[in-house]
């Protein structure tokens, strides 16, 4: 079963995303290895009634193909060597985003999780707790509806909704377009809430400083093992809904241990958007990131 990600129905703030097709990089040619290994056959002794291979105006050489020989139905094909990463287009858009963000001292986070882990609630609570101390904007990714962006806007923070339509993840091009529509302030915070999906967003760099994985305690402790790519790609895991731990059999230590099995360097914060546990640590982590982004700001060369 595939998730059916594709382009074609993406909306940003309700408007269709322009389709893009750009030329690829340099094209290189390769001489078939086979040619060197298959020399032309030496002429057989005359008078044996066998066709002798020779280059003349009336001969056709079938020996220059990839197999170095002719086989019925096999044409003389040519190889084009490109050696490009399948995600190279996304990565080049991500680099553009990252360059822009670093030139403007903007700290960008890509929040990833399964649906229902409490990402939007956590964002709303975080924005309220920051209470305007930090300029921030939010990009919301969902397949359909403007609901999440509306929830963010209710806090007073600017938010733009990207609807991916069929797609199950945000890509760097969508985020780049959204960044252009939002008025990003220098030395600010950009929060990108990805589509709820623990699989696909792991591979798509958006140009963010960090991926932050949110795992709620109402899920399983083995989620990091079941979806290792996401936890490997993330630098921070927020173990959310910790206020519910007394009512569940969820083993928080085991969940953290599992996350560290796939990513020994992952940082973990136990948090609850409802009780406020861990919020201070999380906000301090954000502020430290913002200070660093502003300090290491890479002004463009004039």
């Amino acid at each position, binding site marked *: 079963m595939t*998730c059916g990600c*594709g382009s074609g129905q993406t909306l940003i703030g309700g408007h269709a995303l322009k389709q893009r097709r750009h030329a690829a990089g340099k094209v290189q040619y390769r001489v078939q290895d086979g040619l060197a290994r298959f020399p032309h056959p030496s002429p057989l002794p005359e008078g044996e009634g066998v066709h002798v291979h020779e280059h003349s105006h009336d001969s056709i050489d079938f020996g220059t193909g990839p197999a170095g020989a002719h086989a019925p139905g096999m044409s003389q094909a040519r190889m*084009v060597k490109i050696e490009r990463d*399948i995600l*190279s287009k*996304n990565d080049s858009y991500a680099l553009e985003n990252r360059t822009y963000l670093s030139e403007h001292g903007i700290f960008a986070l890509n929040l990833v999780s399964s649906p229902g882990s409490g990402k939007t609630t956590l964002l709303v609570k975080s924005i309220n707790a920051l209470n305007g101390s930090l300029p921030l904007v939010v990009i919301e990714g969902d397949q359909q509806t403007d609901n999440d962006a509306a929830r963010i806007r209710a806090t007073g923070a600017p938010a733009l909704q990207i609807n991916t339509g069929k797609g199950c993840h945000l890509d760097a091009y969508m985020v780049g377009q959204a960044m252009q529509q939002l008025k990003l302030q220098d030395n600010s915070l950009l929060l990108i809430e990805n589509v709820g999906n623990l699989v*696909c967003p792991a591979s798509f760099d958006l140009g963010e400083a960090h991926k932050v994985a949110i795992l709620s305690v109402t899920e399983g402790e083995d989620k990091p093992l079941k979806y290792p790519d996401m936890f490997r790609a993330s630098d921070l895991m927020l173990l959310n809904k910790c206020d519910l731990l007394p009512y569940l059999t969820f083993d928080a230590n085991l969940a953290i241990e599992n996350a560290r099995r796939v990513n020994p360097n992952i940082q973990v914060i136990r948090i609850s958007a409802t009780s406020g546990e861990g919020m201070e640590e999380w906000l301090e982590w954000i502020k430290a990131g913002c200070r660093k982004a502003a300090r290491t700001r890479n002004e463009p060369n004039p």
Partner: protein
Amino acid sequence: MHEMSLAEGIVQLVEDAARADGCSKVKVIWLEIGQLAAVEIEALRFCFDAVTRDGIAAGARLEIIATPGQGWCMKCEGNVPVTALYEPCPVCGSYQIQVTGGSEMRVKEFEVE
């Protein structure tokens, strides 16, 4: 994962390069897919057939070169094979492994007519 997006990425890279080259038909495409790249090959083939229809690569064959997962075990201080991201080091059992190979997803080359 997102095999449809990957298939579209492959076709875009190949079509652009093939067009720049002036050829009319792509017959075989060689991909290098790492063991740890989390790509479902059969799903990729299915999506590839769907997105190549009517294009320059319609009916093209996909050849997959699988590259093995590899890592550097910090405890053993040596290269070890990695079959899955959640597996421990096969030598010492440690999880402190830095993946060094097997996550590639590349279009290597393709054959044109």
